[in-house]
């Protein structure tokens, strides 16, 4: 069902210019409830900029953005926190919204960092901090999650678990997710819609459509296209609404 009410954020021909240079232009995309939209593209292609346009961080943009929700969770790509602040993980969890102790514990457990709850934020490793950032974003049960390279610095097994968690969250909370990822494997397995950026939208569509696109191949190379085709398989079952598996 595609109704207007399911749309969380909609970019129409959006772009952002800084010092007379376009960081990204002409981006149109829609994030709906329960859907994962992934942005891919080489460095400097405007992925983070697009996310910031969608979030309303950049003010003087071209085109327009319609945002239909204020319940937003954001995991930025780069975060510089000033350590002159005495800040524990549990203080950080309450940063933008007052949430219950139970929800904090639950979110920290889901990302596997509940044991760090009373630690000072400055003493965490990069991967640990990344898990805390994800926990903070999901703990407020947002309607829209924007994840900018959410698993950077996380160990390999953790990475897989966290992507599974992200997929679960989109299902259970039926929130829309705007994901930025370098990991083409992930893009294939969990995403509903892929937008391939290179200063502008170079192609978009379902993961398979994008994989077959010639511009995509030109951008990422023939190999990348083959990575994706590995995942092409026919589903021999469907999920019922209660989550049971039905064979076709």
């Amino acid at each position, binding site marked *: 069902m595609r109704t207007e009410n399911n749309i969380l954020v909609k970019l129409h021909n959006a772009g952002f210019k800084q010092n007379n240079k376009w960081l990204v232009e002409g981006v149109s995309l829609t994030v709906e409830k329960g859907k994962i939209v992934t942005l891919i593209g080489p460095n400097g292609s405007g992925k983070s900029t697009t996310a*910031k346009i969608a*979030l309303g*961080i950049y003010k003087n943009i071209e085109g327009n953005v319609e945002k239909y929700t204020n319940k937003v969770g*954001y995991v930025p790509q780069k*975060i510089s926190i*000033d350590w002159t602040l005495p800040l524990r993980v549990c203080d*950080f969890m309450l940063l*933008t919204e007052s949430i219950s102790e139970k929800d904090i514990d639950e979110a920290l457990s889901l990302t596997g960092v509940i044991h760090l709850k009373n630690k000072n934020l400055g003493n965490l490793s990069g991967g640990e901090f990344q898990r805390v950032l994800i926990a903070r974003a999901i703990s407020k049960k947002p309607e829209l999650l924007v994840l900018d390279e959410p698993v950077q610095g996380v160990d390999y097994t953790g990475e897989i678990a966290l992507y599974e968690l992200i997929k679960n969250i989109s299902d259970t909370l039926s929130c829309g997710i705007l994901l930025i990822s370098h990991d083409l494997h992930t893009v294939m397995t969990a995403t509903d819609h892929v937008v391939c950026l290179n200063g502008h939208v170079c192609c978009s569509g379902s993961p398979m459509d994008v994989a077959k696109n010639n511009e995509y191949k030109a951008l990422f190379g023939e190999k990348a296209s083959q990575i994706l085709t590995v995942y092409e398989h026919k589903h021999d079952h469907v999920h019922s609404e209660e989550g049971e598996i039905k064979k076709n």
Partner: protein
Amino acid sequence: MFDDFFVRALFAGIGIAFVTGPLGCFVVWRRLSYFGDTLAHSALLGVTMAYTLDLNIAISVFLISSVIALILIQLQKKTNLPGDALLGLLAHSSLAVGLVVIGFLTFIRFDIMGLLFGDILAVTTDDLLIIWIGGALILLVLKLIWKPLFASTVNYELAEAEGLNPDRAKAIFTILMAAVIAISIKMVGLLLITGMLIIPAAMARNISDSPQKMVLFSIIGGLLSVVLGLYSSLEFNTSSGPSIIAASLVLFILSLFKIKQSIKLKN
């Protein structure tokens, strides 16, 4: 009870410490100590305006400091000069203009020292009212903007992305800074107000592991400094402002021992 100048000074100082405690934490966290200095320097211009136009000192200082803060924000947007150069420019030019204007006001006898370093004798019951009512208002507003202000202090983009409107919080905080300088200028003096904001907060940072604790310790540190400073100024016949700041310095030095201990514990 408020007939005694010392009791008045004590109550004025206590009222100020309650406000500078939490505000000082934000000054430290947001690296605004030079900004506080600039506003304080411009306060001299406010004082001269109060004398020329026969206004209340606190109100006129508040107005001038707010205007200077607004000019600073505009200059930051319009010029390519670095922030500290702009702060220096505003601080010293407003101080200089203030002193030049004083030169013209030959018909008024000015207690320049009292203005620069605070004067215990100058605190009147009216000043007490301004400090306590103004202080209560400042704290109330700070409590209202606490969440967006704190969140954007930690990370601006997170606060903006999650709908907290950090720009508005920052603008309101700037006004609060002007207000706290206005109510404390008579007591601490314009050269030492920043000290009252920063030193108790810096002391609190050394002994706290959460933002709430830091605010609490900062208030306690400020209160202790006021009481210790005022009693010693009475004892040794020193000026009130410097005595309060010197007392807070002693507390800061004591707090350093606590850091040493915790570093030892970690090893």
